[in-house]
């Protein structure tokens, strides 16, 4: 009988399979439920804005800019479920925690890029529509990009934010599973930090504004910021993997 030894090849193959399953699940829930709702809501708000001739001072401010919020918190929530719910489920299907962690990493990468593309398309479409009225969207919080045409920067911002939030969700889900509701909630003070840190370092959106206005944070060059954000997200994923590696599945 051949010895039953785990090999890196097997780990990566099954990790990829796991990533595929998780991504398909996310695509199903995100693509079929979440994104259509987001689009309908924002088109609705936009139409209302046009119909009422703008909101006073906020006239012609970007509507899609605010989609950044749900576009981060939904993946975060889903990643919590993945951490707390799918891990036990997949272990019972014979997955190792290592394979599952690889799968989660793959899912985070794919879903972040997909959300970034949707975000970029949204901004572009908004820009075109505003253009029909001879206007261009005004942004109320800081971004990496100045203009929706800065596609690489738009993609980078959305992808970095989404991935950081998903990594954070994975961490939160794991701590909730391990420590239960009360402790898990108390630990949010710490477990939410990676997502906030990335927003801070990236100096975008609300926390970016806080960073700039409140702390006088000056965003370093992108060549520093982007690798730093990726490092925070990767470290969060790796740290969560280290945390779940000896995790017991509850009876």
């Amino acid at each position, binding site marked *: *009988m051949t*010895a*039953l*030894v*785990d*090999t890196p090849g*097997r*780990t990566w193959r*099954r990790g990829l*399979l*796991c990533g*595929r*399953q998780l991504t398909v*699940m996310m695509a199903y829930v995100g693509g079929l439920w979440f994104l259509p709702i987001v689009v309908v809501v924002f088109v609705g708000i936009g139409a209302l804005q046009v119909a009422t001739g703008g909101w006073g001072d906020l006239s012609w401010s970007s509507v899609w800019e605010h989609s950044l919020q749900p576009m981060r918190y939904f993946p975060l929530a889903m990643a919590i*479920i993945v951490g*707390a*719910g*799918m891990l*036990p*489920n*997949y*272990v*019972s*299907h*014979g*997955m*190792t*925690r*290592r*394979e599952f962690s690889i799968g989660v990493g793959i899912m985070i990468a794919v879903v972040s890029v997909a959300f970034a593309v949707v975000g970029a398309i949204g901004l572009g479409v908004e820009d075109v529509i505003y253009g029909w009225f001879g206007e261009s969207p005004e942004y109320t919080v800081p971004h990496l990009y100045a203009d929706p045409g800065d596609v690489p920067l738009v993609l980078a911002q959305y992808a970095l934010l989404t991935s950081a939030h998903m990594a954070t969700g994975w961490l939160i889900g794991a701590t909730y599973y391990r420590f239960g509701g009360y402790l898990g909630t108390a630990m949010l003070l710490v477990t939410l930090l990676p997502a906030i840190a990335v927003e801070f370092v990236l100096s975008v959106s609300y926390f970016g504004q806080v960073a700039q206005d409140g702390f006088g944070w000056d965003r370093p060059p992108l060549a520093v910021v982007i690798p730093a954000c990726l490092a925070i997200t990767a470290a969060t994923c790796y740290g969560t993997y280290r945390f779940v*590696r*000896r995790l*017991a*599945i509850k*009876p």
Partner: protein
Amino acid sequence: MTLGIDVRNLTVRFGDVVAVDDVSFTLSGGKIYGLLGRNGSGKTTLLSLLAAFAPVRQGKVLVGGAEPFENSAVTEKVCLIRERSIAPDGTTVKDILNDARVFRPAWDEKYADRLLDMFQLPRKKTVSRLSRGQQSALGITVGLASRASVTIFDESYLGLDAPTRYDFYDELLRDYMEQPRTIIMSSHLIEEVGRLFEEVLILDRGRLVSHEETDTLLTAGAAVTGPAHLVDEVTQGLTVLSQQQLGGTKSTAVYGKISEDAQARARSAGLEIGSLGLQDLFVHLTREREEPT
């Protein structure tokens, strides 16, 4: 391929509670094993470790000669079905089967379909909305169709009515004969499942109190009834499981073989020697005894 199981001096503690207490046994594999024990005897904890649900901290667990924890060469071949589904909310029957198909190398889709039809399980329903019995049936479906070299059913019958349980036993036997593999079943329904087992392990408060072939176990205990002094004479030197006395008549349940000689003498002295069934033996072996102080 059938896999053997080797457990060496396994101890599991949860805080001050010792759930599994220095348990050792070897299963050669390819058989149907029964794991019996009262609630809280450590069955689920023990089985969880075989399936790598938790790391082993004290002692050793080997499946097919290798440690299962974080070793998918082993875990893909070990399928533990617990009494309760742990799928997250919103997961449908179909989702569970899709994952099993991807992750279980020996998965048999046709067989799964046949079992779903047999149990009349709705494929599109979410698991949380299934009845207790339907959840058990789903677990049984996954467990059988995974065709895992080591398949473990931990009380996977809760909520099933008697006819469905018998359907499960029939299916288990039929599929086991077609595809021999190591099957471990834990159950409280000893009268129903006792005859399915080739070997039986009995856990009592975390300790392994018996591991025998079922047929050996059926003759391992005896109830000797008759005049007290004669009963005591015959049962001397044997492990006494319980005794009852009414007037001068005594009935003693013993664990261990009474020699043919002693049996003949006992019978001629008018003692009654009955054998203890599996259920009785189990009850006696796991009875709350007063701890010697």
